[in-house]
């Protein structure tokens, strides 16, 4: 065996051809804390990959700061062996990630290395191509308006804060309010939406706990959602450079599929940690700090990322990239620097409140402060018909509920409004990891808004809902659910049938 190894080595060395030529080089003059300063390399490009030679291996680094006499670089690999005087070579390549169909179902880091232990991603015969992490957003003429819904499977969102394919909808709230759960449900629900093309779902974890990422992947796997999902993972222990690049890597992968006419859903969890990583890198590289020590271009960082989400027109393949960025607030302060930046960039926000969560209203969506700027343009006709009054009813309930605390005697109309509001609030409660197909949402909201549930005690609403949906899907799928699913509309025939079925079910409940 030793003889075989030697022969193979000889063959490899014999076949080695090298053409001596001048290369651009530099030298590390300062290193530490994940960054380094390199002298020389005066022709380096911005965002170019540089290779730092160490005794063990070549460490990739990113040219971040191009200054007159030196370059500020951030390490993309293990930095322990890098010393002053280490040689740095230019590669001529701007930072990019290999993208291809083989990425689906995989968990990788922002430089494209798999971290799920399932082996290499791309084989020798792969048709993967390099997609740059930084790319200009689609221009105005390349886009068309957002019309196709992206159902999250969460009643409160699909009814009142509808999201369309190509939209950017921010999920914002304090820690432990269910932000990631909403994103997870949105991903899980995509396989339930059978009348629309299945989107590729990309979850970008920025500085999350490894346990949380592992749990997320496990849930996707168990729910059979990993077959249309990709996870780009950076843990809290990863260098700031990787956390900074993670959203751009996810976006580049998304653009690969969008350019091929596919719909893509991308979740950035979360952009607060992304901003903190960028601040860390900027301060280390001595960029001037601004408000809250963030660099001056922090808005541009998120704006250029989120502008890449779009609905392309037919001439460019009709693909779409829907972004669900997540921002974590501190003590409910949505007027802080980073939250206000991202709110002004996105096409709406889903605001989650700790108070509502603690009261048991889950998902803890504050409907009053949440908005979707695309609105009913991205809703099916069926849902539009059914849920049109929902927001108004809940707004009236909120006003009256405050009034009730100060008044003892109420007239019948007010009592009715309050009862209806309580009923709707109960109907909108939903367990996590239980996304509901939109046709099921339609029938239950129809029943609730048209007074069919008035006689059902509040404590039994959940049980009624589950049993009713089970009843309809087993007996009336062809006559009620299938037409809703396929036509996205509730015509008079279906409506009449639905009314009859509700009465029938109420009789046996």
């Amino acid at each position, binding site marked *: 065996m030793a003889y075989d190894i030697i022969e193979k080595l000889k063959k490899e060395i014999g076949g080695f051809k090298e053409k001596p030529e001048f*290369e651009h080089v*530099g030298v590390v003059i300062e290193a530490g804390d994940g960054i380094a300063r390199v002298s020389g*390399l005066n022709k380096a490009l911005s965002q170019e990959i540089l290779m730092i030679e160490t005794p063990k291996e070549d460490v990739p680094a990113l040219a971040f700061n191009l200054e007159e006499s030196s370059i500020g670089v951030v390490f993309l690999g293990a930095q322990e062996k890098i010393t002053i005087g280490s040689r740095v070579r230019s590669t001529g390549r701007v930072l990019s990630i290999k993208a291809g169909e083989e990425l689906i179902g995989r968990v990788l880091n922002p430089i494209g290395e798999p971290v799920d232990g399932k082996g290499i991603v791309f084989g020798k015969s792969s048709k993967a191509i390099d997609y740059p992490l930084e790319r200009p957003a689609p221009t105005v003429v390349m886009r068309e308006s957002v019309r196709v819904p992206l159902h999250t499977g969460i009643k409160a969102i699909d009814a009142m804060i509808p999201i369309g394919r190509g939209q950017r909808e921010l999920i914002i709230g304090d820690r432990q309010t269910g932000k990631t759960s909403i994103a997870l449900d949105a991903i899980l629900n995509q396989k339930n939406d059978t009348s629309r093309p299945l989107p590729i779902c990309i979850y970008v974890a920025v500085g999350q706990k490894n346990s949380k990422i592992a749990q997320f992947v496990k849930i996707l796997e168990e729910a059979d959602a990993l077959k249309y999902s990709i996870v780009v993972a950076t843990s809290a222990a990863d260098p700031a450079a990787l956390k900074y690049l993670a959203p751009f890597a996810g976006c580049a992968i998304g653009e690969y599929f969008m350019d091929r006419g596919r719909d893509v859903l991308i979740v950035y969890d979360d952009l607060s940690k992304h901003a903190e990583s960028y601040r860390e890198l900027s301060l280390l590289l001595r960029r001037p700090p601004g408000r809250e020590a963030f660099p001056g271009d922090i808005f541009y960082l998120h704006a250029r990322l989120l502008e890449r989400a779009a609905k392309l027109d037919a001439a460019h393949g009709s693909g779409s990239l829907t972004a669900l960025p997540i921002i974590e607030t501190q003590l409910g302060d949505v007027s802080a620097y980073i939250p206000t930046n991202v709110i002004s960039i996105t096409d709406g926000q889903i605001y989650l409140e700790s108070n509502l969560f603690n009261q048991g209203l889950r998902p803890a969506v504050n409907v009053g402060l949440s908005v979707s700027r695309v609105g009913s343009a991205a809703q099916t006709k069926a849902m539009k018909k059914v849920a049109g009054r929902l927001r108004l009813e809940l707004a009236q309930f909120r006003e009256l509920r405050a009034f009730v605390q100060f008044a003892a005697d109420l007239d019948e109309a007010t009592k009715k409004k309050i009862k209806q509001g309580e009923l709707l609030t109960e109907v909108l409660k939903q367990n996590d990891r239980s996304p509901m197909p939109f046709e099921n949402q339609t029938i239950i909201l129809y029943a609730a808004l048209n007074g069919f549930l008035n006689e059902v005690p509040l404590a039994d609403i959940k049980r009624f809902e589950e049993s009713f949906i089970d009843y309809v899907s087993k007996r009336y799928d062809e006559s009620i659910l299938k037409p809703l699913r396929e036509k996205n509309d509730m015509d008079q025939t279906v409506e009449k049938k639905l009314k009859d079925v509700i009465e029938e079910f109420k009789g046996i409940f």
Partner: protein
Amino acid sequence: MKYKAESYARALVEAWHDSPTSEHDRVIERFIQVIRKNGDWNQIPAINTSLERLLTKEKGGKIVDIETARPLPTKIMQGLINNFRSPDIVNVKNNTKLIAGVRITLNGTEELDLSFAHKLRKLFRNA
């Protein structure tokens, strides 16, 4: 360190060019005083290197660093050096990490690496 070595070197060269020949000694004197005052006396070697580079670049020359794995015979070394002319500055030194061969660096930015270590790296790391 109040200012970088390159900044000191550039300031000196500019002051030298902007002042008449009779004032040049005075310029150097004042330059030394400034360095002492700023507490950057230990930067003198770095300032010297930067000055060398600046002045060579001004005259259109190159800073050439020739590294060999082991000391070469004088004849061969002279042959290498004769490829360059004034105002080029040629520095020769040994670097056993090259294992064998020679590495030539121009102005610290371009390099022709003919060393054995480089070949090994290309063969085994990039394969």
